[in-house]
């Protein structure tokens, strides 16, 4: 029993660490860990104090009224590939109370399907700035409706009938996105050599953008922590 638990611990540690993908000849890759954490001022106070939300020295006790950064599930790592024409499939499920995701990173040309698991017919729309809008055909309970995304920018998916059904969309041309939980490893493999833009996004915090040159036969490790202060610092970088 002890041996089994030790083995499990070793496997957990091994999978938790960022491991470089295998190199494909002539191609490159980027990999790393994506995570989110509290503001540095809150963490600094936690390192000194022990009461309320500052449970133990250096630690925070997250209540259900707080943003639980170590357990966030909608962190997106995105690659902008100018040669990509989209075509990825995304499924969102609508219930009477909410959407299956509150945020989603998508590329123009991707297909967005909505499954209506609510009890009423819903008319969904995608809206951006000013006149930008795409409208789904009405979808009856138990059915699906889909469209190919044309709009680019920071979009909102909503429904005419139920305002609690909302998903925030980050839409960019050539975007290939991966959804991760805080602390997950991400990897983009088999990339042609060239210059790419990478986006790290959490809807409540915003974007961190990184420009990287991928070379043949090279793996680049890029770990990103999303927090208010770190994102603000990245915006102020020259």
């Amino acid at each position, binding site marked *: 029993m002890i041996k089994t638990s030790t083995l499990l611990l070793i496997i957990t540690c091994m999978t938790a660490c960022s491991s470089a993908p295998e190199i494909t000849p002539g191609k490159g890759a980027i990999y790393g860990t994506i995570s989110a954490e509290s503001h540095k001022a809150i963490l600094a106070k936690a390192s000194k104090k022990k009461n309320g939300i500052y449970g133990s020295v250096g630690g925070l006790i997250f209540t259900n009224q707080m943003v639980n950064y170590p357990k966030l599930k909608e962190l997106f790592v995105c690659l902008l590939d100018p040669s990509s024409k989209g075509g990825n499939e995304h499924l969102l499920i609508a219930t009477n109370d909410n959407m299956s995701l509150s945020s989603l990173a998508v590329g123009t040309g991707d297909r967005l399907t909505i499954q209506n698991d609510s009890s009423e017919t819903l008319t969904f729309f995608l809206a951006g700035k000013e*006149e930008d809008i795409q409208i789904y055909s009405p979808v009856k309970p138990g059915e699906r409706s889909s469209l190919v995304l044309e709009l680019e920018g920071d979009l909102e998916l909503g429904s005419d009938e139920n305002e609690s059904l909302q998903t925030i969309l980050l839409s960019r041309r050539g975007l290939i996105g991966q959804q991760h939980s805080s602390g997950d490893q991400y990897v983009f493999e088999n990339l042609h050599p060239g210059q790419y833009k990478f986006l790290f996004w959490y809807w409540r915090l915003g974007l961190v953008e990184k420009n990287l040159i991928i070379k043949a036969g090279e793996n680049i490790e890029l770990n990103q922590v999303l927090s*208010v202060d770190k994102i603000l610092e990245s915006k102020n970088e020259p």
Partner: protein
Amino acid sequence: MKNDIPFSHAGVLLMRINRILFTFVSFLIVLPGIVEANHLSGKVEVEGGKKLKNLIVYLEPAESLQKKADPRVHKVLQKGRRYNPDLIVVSPGDKIQFLNDEDREIDHNIYSLSKFKNFDLGLGERGSVLEVEIDKIGSGNFYCSVHRLMEGRIVSLNTRYFAVLESPGNFILPNIPPGNWVAKVIVFHKRYKSIPINISLSDTTHKNIELKVVKK
């Protein structure tokens, strides 16, 4: 007891007068078109009768010659882990003060990473007052990085002539200087947009307008 009777009659009379006055004042406020000169009154109507929340009716100067508004300070409370108010309409040069008035030790961290205004006010402990100055027009959300339901919105306009409507209906914008204006409605629901109206106000006129909010 005898003295009570005339007093009672006088009370009833006073109540009636009050009621008449109240009705008269309400009539002036609610009924569009009969308010005094250079006040703008009107109604916002939404296509399909949708009860959209938090509509901002405002007058934008048609020419950009209007003098800059005197700066103001707006206060936002945070008791109960809510921003109060959660919609703040300001003008460039205004300051917003965030008061941590929680009744127990609760820390906040107010920030915005919007394209309109980036700010991070750091640790806001109980009793603290943190301030941000708005320097341009636009709008953006702000949040508390600690509490997930704390969310608010700043709208910065180049005018002081606005009204926030909780739902579509009547509005009055008082004491509008004479000139040419564009009347608009800010609609947060992205399915809808407003149709602006150009209006001209002189010293002695008032206007009664109808602003339409339609589906995109």
